[in-house]
């Protein structure tokens, strides 16, 4: 804040920065995680953070449908797909 303005912490700015940072970090985690189920956790975090961003844009309905469809259905279907195609429960011991 230049020119002697009073420094105020803007809550909206703070929340926006937090949400966008968590969206980006979880999106990076999706491609960086070693375990594929961890990627799915990152994906769910990313979806929820995007839903919260929609709420900040006062599009509540889109946010709710985002959670209902993406976290409630798409992520679970992805998890089903991952788990049903593995022969062992976990493969992390092999590394």
């Amino acid at each position, binding site marked *: 804040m230049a020119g002697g303005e009073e420094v*105020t912490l803007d*809550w909206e700015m703070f929340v926006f920065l937090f949400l966008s940072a968590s969206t980006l970090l979880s999106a990076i985690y999706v491609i960086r995680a070693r375990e594929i189920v961890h990627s799915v*956790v990152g994906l769910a975090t990313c979806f929820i953070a995007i839903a919260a961003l929609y709420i900040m844009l006062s599009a509540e309905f889109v946010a*709710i449908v985002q959670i209902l469809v993406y*976290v*409630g259905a798409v992520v679970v279907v992805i*998890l089903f797909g991952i*788990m049903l195609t593995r022969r062992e429960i976990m493969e992390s011991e092999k590394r």
Partner: protein
Amino acid sequence: MNLFEFCYGIIHWLVDLINHLWYWLGDVLPWWFGDFFDAVGNFAASQGHMAVMTIFLEVVIVVVIALINVLNFIWIFRKFMGRMFDFYGPYYVGYRIGGWLQNLADGIKLFVKEIIVPAKADKMGYLLAPIIYIGSSILILATIPFSENFGVATNESGSYVPAGALFALAAFAIAPFSILLAGWASNNKYTLIGGMRSAAQMMSYEIPLLMTVASVFLLAGSYGFVDIVDAQHDIWFAFPLFIGFLIFLVCLAAEVEIIPFDLPEAEAELVEGWTTEYGGMRFGLFYFTTTIRSYAGGALATALFLGGWHGPALIPDEIWFLIKAYIVYTIFQWMTWSLPRVRVDQMLGIGWKRLLPLAVINLMIAVALKSMGWF
């Protein structure tokens, strides 16, 4: 006066009190300290900070009410099971109040047990799954108002969570993800099978559930709890949408995994289902949260079908709401202790072949009622 105004008053008073002390402290210190103290004090008294603190206080109130209710519900569960099976139920701990303190004793026992993480478990998933499950379940409660004046408001004007009923169902829908994660991360075949069953069951029963709720939204013309309950001022939606109410109860029983549909925790087949590897207070919190979900289900059934807080003005609105929610929960328990568990194939058959067509018929009835202009 609604809950938001009440909490805002408390927070305003507290901030004033603390700021008096704070500014006094700033005055007696050197000037450069004083400026800093002034900045912090002004921030504490700002509108945004007070609103956030008010919402925190509201959430605390809602959660405490939920926890007390859950203690009651677990007590009802045990007493009712005892009466159905011809024994007394909890009796010795607090025998003057019907053994109500047994829950607290069990809670303390679980609380002091050792917390174990299995050696071959996936640490991240094992620790994250309870957080997601409990967090999303308590999020449901934040959306459900007990009356027009008692609910978590979103802003100064006192309006409630927009599209609250839909938001509650969206929070319900997060749970299969955490359950599947818990089942996988425990690295045990029973937990994995339990998690798979649970996710399959929740996903398949969510569709008829949402379709019956869609018929309620259609008749009420709104997604918000207050509008839905006001639309039931003349007649409860349980009467014109009788099929829908029954479907809603059955789907809710499947969503909260109580006995006719407790395949994910079938004690005779899977040891304890997807919670097998969780011990101590983690298991306690899972148990607690499952009861919170039953309570939220009862509250949803009350708000969407049983007229919410409407009733003779003899009793306050909030108490009416709780009475109805308790009755729905007791009906759940009645169902639990009188029906045998369904098989996996029967469970999916009931969901897709019976409930889904009935939900479509229910939606058609709702459309017919709406187009006749009766609602």
